């Protein structure tokens, strides 16, 4: 079994990003994200062990607005007017509540993939793909590291470079939830707008930051733990490791208390 996350926290993550990034997302995003949140809330009504595909579907992807070359920073303009479509599928199941009486967390129990595709806004009816990548969670038997990104190599792709038959490299990464990946995309496509001080003081960004800070800290603490305890090459050890299932729902990990996250 893979990692667990808090249902409430991930729902809040969706709401905060929906509010904080509303000017950079397509108008359809409001409904798409509301549905995405609702379908996660419904996980609490299923039984532990029952797998559900929680997804942003290809039919109703999360779309960004068009970036008019704003993927360069300091007011420089890039050569493309482009936008992103984000789809995802996470196979998840509710976590059996042991002490608490109600379901508060879910666990990844199968595929966990967020797919980002960039398109040229050419004004023509057909969308022109500029590139794509996927952020995925591996499993214990997978050859790559647990949190990883793959360039192209999507199913049925035969074109080179990166046909589906070549599923390397699996680049390490640390942003993995659909919304965290979305923030990454927005930060790339709208360099100046996303980091603008006016946005960073929004209440929604503050709520967003609280969740991301805690999760990033946990992921870095896990990397520190794996690096510290690696018998040989840290990378080889990291590549073969997955976090304890409850790592991201623990409340006792503390940067100031190394014993809380390091191995004895």
């Amino acid at each position, binding site marked *: 079994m893979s990692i667990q996350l808090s249902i*409430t926290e991930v729902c809040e993550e969706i709401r905060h990003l929906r509010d904080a990034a*509303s*000017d950079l997302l*397509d*108008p*359809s995003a*409001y*409904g*798409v994200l*509301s*549905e995405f949140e*609702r*379908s996660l*809330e*419904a996980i*609490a*009504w*299923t039984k532990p062990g*029952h797998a*559900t595909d929680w997804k942003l*579907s290809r*039919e*109703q992807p999360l779309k960004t607005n068009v970036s008019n070359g704003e993927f360069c920073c300091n007011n420089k303009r890039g050569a493309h007017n482009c936008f992103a479509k984000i789809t995802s599928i996470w196979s998840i199941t509710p976590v059996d509540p042991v002490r608490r009486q*109600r379901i508060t967390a879910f666990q990844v129990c199968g595929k966990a993939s967020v797919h980002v595709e960039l398109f040229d806004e050419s004004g023509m009816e057909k969308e022109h793909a500029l590139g794509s990548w996927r952020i995925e969670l591996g499993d214990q038997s997978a050859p790559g590291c647990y949190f990883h990104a793959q360039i192209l190599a999507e199913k049925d792709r035969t074109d080179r470079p990166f046909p589906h038959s070549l599923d390397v490299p699996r680049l390490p990464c640390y942003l993995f939830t659909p919304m965290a990946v979305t923030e990454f995309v927005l930060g790339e496509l709208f360099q100046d707008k996303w980091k603008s001080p006016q946005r960073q003081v929004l209440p929604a960004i503050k709520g967003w930051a609280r969740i991301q800070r805690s999760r990033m800290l946990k992921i870095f603490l896990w990397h520190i733990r794996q690096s510290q305890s690696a018998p040989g090459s840290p990378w080889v050890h990291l590549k073969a490791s997955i976090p304890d299932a409850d790592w991201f729902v623990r409340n006792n990990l503390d940067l100031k208390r190394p014993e809380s996250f390091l191995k004895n």
Partner: protein
Amino acid sequence: MDTTKCPTVLVLDDQAPLLSDEINNLPPDLAKCFRVRGPEEATDADLKAAHLVLVDYKLDEWKENNTSSGLCKYVPNGLALTAILQQRAISSAHPVAFAIHSAHLPELTDPLPHEPRLHLLSRICNIDWAFEKDDPRGQEIKYRQIVSLAEAVCQLPDAWPRADGEKTRAKAQKLLQINEALPWAVQTWSDVERARPPLDELVQRVHGLLFLRWVLQRVLSYPCFLLDETWLAARLAVTRASLRDALPVGLSDLFGPVEYTGILTAFRGKRWWRMGVEYVLWDIGGKSSLGAHELRRLLIEKRGFPLIPTESLHPVVCLDTDFLPLEQLYDPSEAVRILPDDWPPYAEQAWTTIQVALGDKRMNGLVIEADRPRLDDLEQAEVQ
């Protein structure tokens, strides 16, 4: 819920005999709830017996008042009288609500139409509600609504729990009729909490009246954890008219178990628990969350409800210039988000159509900054 108390409404009106006649023409079960008094004849005992005090706004025919001299003796209108009576009622053994009853509400809400802004007017004037004397819905409907407010006051405890979070929460859940045994109850309570119910120090002083006001003015007046027909139609992505048609032929039964039955349930029409609706949809969807396409196919083709899908898969409710929901539901690409005064942050997003925003300066000014570029582009295109 205490259903043994008989709700009593004290009506203070400078034309008491006229109003008495009007009330005496009501069905007896309704008329018995009212005690009509002129301002001069009302007594402490009347106030003590009342659950709701209905005060006329214009008191021009109150002769004794008109001849009073001195700054502190003259009562300019019903709102001023209400403020005095509210202070007297604080020492009452049970909660007492106050409402204005007037034929002059438009003067108070000008320039906005009064009907959709009664909750705002009440909030600004520190009263619980305002009722129109010549209610276009008919007098009996109005008086039943008034009694339903008094009934809600009866349901409040004489004393709100003090400094006991568990008891307070239990009291609130009882008033809202949240059954903890239901599978969607926990999430519903989270929804309620997000709407910031007054549960602690504010509400204790006034016998829970603030809780009642919160339901009246901040919950039933906005789409949040309770959905009315309009917002239910948007959730199902079907037209409002078809939802109205489908409710009496079975759809009402489908959502019956998640209909709101708590305090003030009869005050402003049917409402459904947002989370309960989600649970029903999840349940009939084979215990999985369906997309709009599949959901509508299930409801229309398999269940046979006469629902008509909207063009949009995620339609939004748009407000007109009077802040009333437009009959048609719109795709977000045809709409912009607005921030009407007082719209709570926990409520569903408020929208208006691009057309309305472009055609009305006031609505245009309410469009949120993030959506303004879309309007500006269209405005420029129109100019060119």
